[in-house]
């Protein structure tokens, strides 16, 4: 193993990739090779640094200097000035600030975060297992195998109070407990990486940035519940995640961290990587199981729950990527440590994808209980373009719309519930006052009408009926009676749909009607829209 005096980390998360990080990396490698510096400088492709809006991002160690928005043209200057002469290229620093005044990690964007799940994302080369090992990768698994019984592991998860990070927020430890206690062989562990919630890309960036954290979490789960086979179901659109994860699994196998008799403990565990094929509903755990079985990804009625009858009818633990990535830190540092993070009702941290009308967009991890205002104003850097905050949609397209009056609510499960929203999978879409709620509702409903699995009546018919009604309102042909019909449909969908998709699909429209009913009424009564997006007359409304 060769030692380099400096490591240059270039983000290769998808967001930076599609902002041209690949040519940047190639130019950097070429320049270093040309100048014969390859023994001194090591270029590492790493996961997402979070600040996707500023990408491509490059970090040079040991100085820890972050450069933002690096383009291939900038490489020569970086090599000449920084690498060879040790001087910082000020103009590429975050927002062009001089180094002395602000380095990226000292900005509120990073200062307000607390990285547990993202501990290694942006810090390691995800394609090199040794980098993970150096940063305590697989130490949680080692500890479990070495010193804990499966029951101990489950108890620690129960004590930690970790709630599922995929959307429903069910206590993770209880799922582990149910699966451990379920009778039936074999048992399976399934990682739900079918992240399809619009506005969410956290799971993708975890998979791309630190796949070993997820593999380790799956192996710990397998040990805890008595499973020796794991499956990870990754969204078909996430080609890079699939590729990285497959590689990581191979490496883990090579290093004996997957396979039989792991670390001489007698515990065996394997992971099979599966690709989805474009169906939002497969994020619903039983739909995912059907899809894994090679069927249409339609949710199953419950009970029975997967813990008792899951994959091929066998006891199955199914957890989200972020949930599993929390397992190793919890085992290493203990349930009490985890509980000390976050809020009383919701321990720990939460990863959010910040998007929409906010200055800093990207991937963040914050303690539960942080207020929406802190996220928007401090981490997000406020609303750009002199606009006003209108609402935040939290939890993705099935999440509620939170208006400005609730900016100070703490972000955790019970507080969001109070305002009709839910934590969901961690999407945070910030919308400024230039947008029309009817137009946005239309977008939400087009999404659900496209993604409903079509199995149960309320969701199959309801999403399309809602879509038709809201399309009509947006087009200026709606009536007050349509609002009543919308209420009837939403009430039935929420109560009578088979799965969470149908039960939550009406949420954004319900909260939009609750907080922005004046906009709906303006469309209906006077054919006006604040944004003009709806194709009716512009203007004329108080919001």
């Amino acid at each position, binding site marked *: 193993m060769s030692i380099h005096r400096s490591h240059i980390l270039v983000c290769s998360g998808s967001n930076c990739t599609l902002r041209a990080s690949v040519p940047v990396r190639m130019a950097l490698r070429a320049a270093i090779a040309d100048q014969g510096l390859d023994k001194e400088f090591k270029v590492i492709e790493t996961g997402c640094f979070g600040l996707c809006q500023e990408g491509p991002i490059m970090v040079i160690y040991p100085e820890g200097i972050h450069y933002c928005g690096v383009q291939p043209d900038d490489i020569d200057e970086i090599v000449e000035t920084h690498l060879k002469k040790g001087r910082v290229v000020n103009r590429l620093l975050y927002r062009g600030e001089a180094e002395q005044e602000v380095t990226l990690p000292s900005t509120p964007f990073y200062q307000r975060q607390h990285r547990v799940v993202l501990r290694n994302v942006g810090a390691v080369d995800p394609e090199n297992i040794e980098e993970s090992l150096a940063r305590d990768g697989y130490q949680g698994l080692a500890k479990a195998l070495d010193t804990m019984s499966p029951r101990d592991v489950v108890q620690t998860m129960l004590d930690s109070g970790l709630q599922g990070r995929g959307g429903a927020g069910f206590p993770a430890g209880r799922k582990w407990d149910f699966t451990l206690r379920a009778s039936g062989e074999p048992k399976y562990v399934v990682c739900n990486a079918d992240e399809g919630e619009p506005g969410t890309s956290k799971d993708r960036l975890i998979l791309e940035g630190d796949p070993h954290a997820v593999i380790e979490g799956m192996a710990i789960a397998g040990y805890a519940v008595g499973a020796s086979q794991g499956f990870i179901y990754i969204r078909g659109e996430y080609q890079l995640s699939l590729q990285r994860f497959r590689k990581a699994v191979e490496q883990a196998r090579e290093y004996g961290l997957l396979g039989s008799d792991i670390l001489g403990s007698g515990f065996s565990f394997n992971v099979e990587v599966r690709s989805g094929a474009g169906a939002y509903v497969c994020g619903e755990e039983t739909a995912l199981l059907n899809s894994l079985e090679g069927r249409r990804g339609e949710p199953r009625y419950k009970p029975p729950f997967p813990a008792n009858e899951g994959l091929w009818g066998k006891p199955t633990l199914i957890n989200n990527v972020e949930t599993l990535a929390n397992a190793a830190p919890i085992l290493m540092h203990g349930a009490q440590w985890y509980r000390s993070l976050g809020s009383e009702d919701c321990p720990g941290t939460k990863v959010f994808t910040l998007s929409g009308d906010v200055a800093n967009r990207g991937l963040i991890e914050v303690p539960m209980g942080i207020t929406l205002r802190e996220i928007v104003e401090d981490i997000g850097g406020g609303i750009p373009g002199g606009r006003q905050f209108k609402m935040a949609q939290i939890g993705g397209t099935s999440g509620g719309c939170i208006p400005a009056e609730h900016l100070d609510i703490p972000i955790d499960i019970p507080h969001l519930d109070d305002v009709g929203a839910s934590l969901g999978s961690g999407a945070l879409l910030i919308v400024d006052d230039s947008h029309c709620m009817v137009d946005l509702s239309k977008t939400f409903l087009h999404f659900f009408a496209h993604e409903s699995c079509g199995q149960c009546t309320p969701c199959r018919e309801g999403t399309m009926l809602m879509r038709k009604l809201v399309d009509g309102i947006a087009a200026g042909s709606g009536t007050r009676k349509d609002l009543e*019909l919308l209420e*009837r449909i939403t009430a039935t969908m929420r*109560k009578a749909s088979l799965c969470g998709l149908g039960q939550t699909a009406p949420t954004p429209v319900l909260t939009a009607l609750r907080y922005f009913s004046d906009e709906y009424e303006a469309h209906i009564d006077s054919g006006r829209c604040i944004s003009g997006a709806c194709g009716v007359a512009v203007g004329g409304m108080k919001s």
Partner: protein
Amino acid sequence: MTDNAVVTINGTEVTVPEGTTILTAAELAGVQIPTLCNHPDQMIKAVCRVCVVEVEGARVFQPACSFPVWDGMNVRTNSPAVIEARKTVVEMLLSRHPQDCLQCERNLHCELQNVSKSVGVNERPFPEETRDLPIDDSSGAVVREADKCINCRRCVEACADVQGVGVLSTVNRGYDTVVSTAFNEPLEQVSCVLCGQCIQACPTGALREHNDIDRVWRALADPNKHVVVQTAPAVRVAIGEDLGLPVGTRATKLLTSALRQLGFDGVFDTDFTADLTIMEEGSELLQRLQEGGTLPMITSCSPGWIKYIEHYYPEQLDHLSTCKSPQQMFGALAKSYYAEKNQYNPDDIYVVSIMPCTAKKFEANRPEMAAEGIRDVDAVLTTRELAQMIDQAGLDFPNLKEEEYDSPLGISTGAAVIFGATGGVMEAALRTVYELVTEQELPALDFTSVRGLDGVKEASVLLPLPNGEDSLEVKVAAAHGLASARQIMEKVKNGEADYHFVEVMSCPGGCIGGGGQPRPSTTERREKRLQAIYDEDEAMTIRKSHENPAVKALYEEYLEKPLGERRHKLLHTHYVQRSRY
């Protein structure tokens, strides 16, 4: 394990085993909960959401059909919110369901109609739309009208799981979700066996038989046609269900009376050719046993089964008996033996079959089923279609004067009537083969081991040979439902089947559960129809096919020696290889 749970349903306590569904518990408490996707013989689907109820403590409503009770559970099936949700669900379905109930085949027999009434739908509040999907009448037997599909998936289960055919599947996603064939191809182009079990499963008018009623009325009205009718064994024990009689009523003599009143010139019985089939098939079996023909020999009376083996096991067609089905034998004889005997021009004879079956319509249309350009059978009606005609004619079916079949094609035995039940052909054949081989009288007529609703029934019969020393062991099996047939065929294909003779019936329960029978053909109803069939057998004076005097006369008067050319031409057929995809 089965601890009892005390459940409160709308304030009434009921004690049931834990794990019972709310639906069942409610029934015991005297509370009816409407359902659509639920079918008593099928797996729980919980997709229509019509049966949702309020369970105390649950965040959302739960479907009564799938949700298990626990001790102390408190259920409300009639809260205003539940009533509103149910009604909304049905209104949603109706927002794009064709509003042609008055013209629909299911009018007054439609589950959607019933549910819609029971949940209190009285308007169509939501934006309306029609899907305008094509009506598929390509097969001439089973018609699909997808616009009327409510996505309950009962037909999919019937096709894929009960029959192991699987030409129907849920396709597309979301609002476009509908039950269809691969690439939406017409049924004629896919490997559908036209058994009609999907029709039995369907709660609406989305699946029905091809309607031949008007053709039959036209033939009856044609003064130049001599219209004869044959009734299949299973029709007599089911037709009453559609005409105001209790399930399991033996309505044979009312049936003949009704047919005569409809204007048929000869009212005959497929049972006659069922006896003939036993004679032919019995000799074929003995011939195969003696001369080393392909074994096991498999029955060929069920046209859905024939189409199934042609599509799915085309390389195994040699196992089939070459006998035509009783329906086709009847048609062939009506236009030859009967015509000759009564000096009719075969062209002027019009043969109508009343069948419990939709595949019989396909069978009658097969190119093999004609002699010198004259079709054996001209029109096939299902039991349901006949009931419709009797309604049209205004006959008071239950109170008709009882009448007998005409001679000679109406004379039959108990062995023939059990053709309508699974295992019946086998039992009838054994009664005859035993006596023909052993030259002794059969000690007990009932072969109960091949009776009943197990999917595959096996038996072994020892036939003492006339020399008094040796005996012949005949191993037999009977399967009903094509998924069961597939089990046997996999054994046959892999050379693991040591049977000599196998009976296969396409439909669960045999013909009494046929796709053309009154709906619904639930297990409960099938059991009653089976009982009626066996009662009918016991009530017959002659119960063995080889003792049927009319059949004996037919051989003496008309058919030549065994395997003679006329016999071959009229009573035997061949099969074609078809593709599975």
